[in-house]
């Protein structure tokens, strides 16, 4: 697979969510959407304007949003509850736990503005814990697509399953590079670049950084494999173990706290099945701050330069 590294197409992942919702809305009259006064930001306003009867505004009330979604699911509707990452997970955690996860309700929680990339809004709006607190819930499927195409496909696909989902995406335009026609399956990681010295297991925004890092490393004679682990739960154990067997060193790359996210999920698998040298690219157990996406990714050490530094540190080249 080749990537246009110099001049990639840029597209918003949240637009992938909005476009998929429109397709689902046309296909399936049971698709309903909940609004929490951020429908412009999360782009559910597009669905709202097309299908006003199937859009329910609940005001600035995320706990109620999750409950109403669960109630709609009781009647066979397929509700998409959408707001910013922190307000979609942190505020209504107990509601999600009891009324959605424990009760196995067919609710799709789709969160935009996730991770540090939300930038200037600062720490209150940078959800760096959302994957951890969703991943810990039994019955929950947790997905972090890496670009517009994959977000679009994940949203279309999740509607086929009668179970709760958490799908995480971003506000800003980011490179759009995955193949819209390649097979896509929850719980099946994509190996985007093959390599033999190290495996970079990345998700979301960091997949692109891993691709850039692999390209730069190649020029220095280091062969880095890049795996897009879009589904954190259920995680693709076989691919992780295989990579550990074939490349040794594994470095996880994510836009999330280092605790409880991708790093933890991969370490959980390897510690049991194949203890392997690991390292991580993630936020170091700290809150974020205001800044541009690029500035923050550099400051919080979650970019391709940091990936390269860590790879070299371990390979001592």
């Amino acid at each position, binding site marked *: 697979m080749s990537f246009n590294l110099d001049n990639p197409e840029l597209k918003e992942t949240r637009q992938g969510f909005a476009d998929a919702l429109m397709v689902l809305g046309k296909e399936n009259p049971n698709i309903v959407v909940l609004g929490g006064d951020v429908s412009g930001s999360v782009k559910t306003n597009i669905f709202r304007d097309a299908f006003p009867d199937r859009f329910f505004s609940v*005001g600035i*009330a995320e*706990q*109620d949003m999750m409950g109403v979604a669960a109630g709609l*699911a009781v*009647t066979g509707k397929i509700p998409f509850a959408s707001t910013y990452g922190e307000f979609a997970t942190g505020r209504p955690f107990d509601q999600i*736990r009891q009324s959605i996860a424990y*009760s*196995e309700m067919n609710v799709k929680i789709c969160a935009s503005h996730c991770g540090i990339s939300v930038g200037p809004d600062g720490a209150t709006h940078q959800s760096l814990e959302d994957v951890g607190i969703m991943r810990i819930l039994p019955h929950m499927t947790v997905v972090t697509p890496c670009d517009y195409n994959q977000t679009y496909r994940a949203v279309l696909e999740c509607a086929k399953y009668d179970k709760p989902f958490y799908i995480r995406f971003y506000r800003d335009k980011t490179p759009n590079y995955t193949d819209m026609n390649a097979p896509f399956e929850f719980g099946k990681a994509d190996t985007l670049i093959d390599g033999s010295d190290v495996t970079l297991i990345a998700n979301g925004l960091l997949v692109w950084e891993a691709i850039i890092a692999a390209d730069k490393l190649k020029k220095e004679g280091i062969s880095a494999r890049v795996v897009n682990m879009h589904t954190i739960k259920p995680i693709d154990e076989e691919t992780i173990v295989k990579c550990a067997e074939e490349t040794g060193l594994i470095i996880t790359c994510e836009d999330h706290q280092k605790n409880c996210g991708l790093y933890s999920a991969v370490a959980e698998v390897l510690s049991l099945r194949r203890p392997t040298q690991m390292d991580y690219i993630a936020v170091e157990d700290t809150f974020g701050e205001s800044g541009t996406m690029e500035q923050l990714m550099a400051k919080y050490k979650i970019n391709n330069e940091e990936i390269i530094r860590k790879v070299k540190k371990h390979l001592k080249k």
Partner: protein
Amino acid sequence: MSTNPKLTSIEDLNEMARQIRRDIINMLLISKSGHSGGPLGLADIFTALYFNKMKLDNENPNWDERDYFFLSIGHVAPVWYATLARRGYFSIDELKTLRKVNGRLQGHPAPSKTHGVPGVEIASGSLGQGVSIAAGTALGLKLSKKSNHVYCICGDGELQEGQIWEGIMTAAHHQCDNLTVIVDKNDCQIDNRVQQVLNMDSIPEKFRAFNWEVIEVNGNDMQSILDGIDKAKAAKEGKPTCIVAQTFMGKGVSFMEDKYTWHGVPPNNEQGKIALTELTKTKFGDFVELEL
């Protein structure tokens, strides 16, 4: 399976409510853990709903035309389990398994989809969530142009949870006239009487201010409850209805009545014996004969 059909006479309904109270005492004597006060106070309302007012099919709990029922206060599970068993959703023998490992009668209700009993649509136990869920179901039914009614029972202490008021706003804004919330106004919660813990007066005025219809009933008087539910279903178009039901915690057992200290404890054998003497036997028969 002991299946009791719909009951129409006040006498039969009262007798069933008394049987359900006996069942609650027996269940708690076996489990030695669980809530006495709230369940006893709600026996009349549960009987009215399940044995007279709600559309349901115990053989087919997911019947499309059923009225939907949500219990926002999961801790009163014993009254729900006893009612469901008496109405034939599962065997009354299963009432012996309250709070027992590998059983379906979880301390707080689990839905049948998880590992709970038929008739439970969604879990509860963490307070404050029922109104939102009921509002969502009411919206889903309206969207499908269906006439099923939605009921939700809340506690008066529970109304202190902020999410309840979010749900109240949502139901009013979206004109959920197919929704009836019943508030169990027993004036008691765990730490003290509601007035002492955090005064909620006046509940009817609060609901009216949020644009709900309000009906006040005596929640321990069968006729008053039946009339209240009829009025609620006939209530104003475009508005959800709240039935504020004045009840007594521990109703039917003299030493428990109106005492908040009975919120969360079971009777011991001595107390159970007295309770079962006060709640005289009924024609429906007990599910167990305990040696006390």
